[in-house]
């Protein structure tokens, strides 16, 4: 399964809904999408990975890169994830301390 990306606005936030596999092959597409949003002045991002089947360290690197970019503009990047198998990789890499991980888009934009 390839990567799917859908972007929508929720108030001040831009929600990026990701589906499929974020791996070493598809991660550049996500990176490109996040860079484009930042270049377009969207600094309040929610990345929803609920429909993601697989996330590797390259994908995590892209999320960290996105976080750095929005923070450079006083923005924020929040992650929506409830899947245990994805949360495990955030824990192993210590990134639960870096990302605000929410259980729904509603809670991410409200926090």
């Amino acid at each position, binding site marked *: 399964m390839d990567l799917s990306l859908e972007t929508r606005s929720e108030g001040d936030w831009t929600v990026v809904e990701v589906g499929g596999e974020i791996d070493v092959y598809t991660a550049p597409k996500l990176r490109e999408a996040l860079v484009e949003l930042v270049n377009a002045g969207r600094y309040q991002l929610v990345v929803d990975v609920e429909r993601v089947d697989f996330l*590797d*360290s390259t994908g995590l*690197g892209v999320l960290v890169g996105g976080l750095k970019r929005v923070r450079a503009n006083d923005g924020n990047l929040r992650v929506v994830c409830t899947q245990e198998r994805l949360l495990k990789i955030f824990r192993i*890499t210590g990134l639960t301390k870096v990302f605000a991980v929410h259980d729904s888009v509603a809670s991410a934009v409200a926090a």
Partner: protein
Amino acid sequence: MATVRIDVAPDQAYVRVVRLVAVSLARLNGITEEVVEDVRRAVGEACGRAVAAHCQADLDAPVIVDFQEDPGLTVIVNDVVPLPHASGANVAAPLGDETPGDPQGQLQQEASAVIAVLEGLADAVSVNTGDSGTAVTLHWTGRR
């Protein structure tokens, strides 16, 4: 003696194929479903690192992945990137040692991060770097 051996052209598009084979062999060897996810992820990380090293070194040679059922599952990911270009050579380098604009340094840093992730996913991990390349060995004991 490998049960299954795959030659992978150095293109990241094929890493997912290796992941699928890894998952299939893990299930065949009675590895529990929770651990199968770890196998999928770890083999993907190790193979992605090796393919990246080949691409970086501009090598057309394939990355070779050996699967051994012994019992449990052992996966050996072999790249043929010689020293001093081997990204696995400096796996003990601390994170944050990045030299900006130095792709080799960045690759090494990424390799360190990958090894750290592998340690969290496999029951045993070993990395052997020699003149002819790097072999990353991952092992799962099977049912726990």
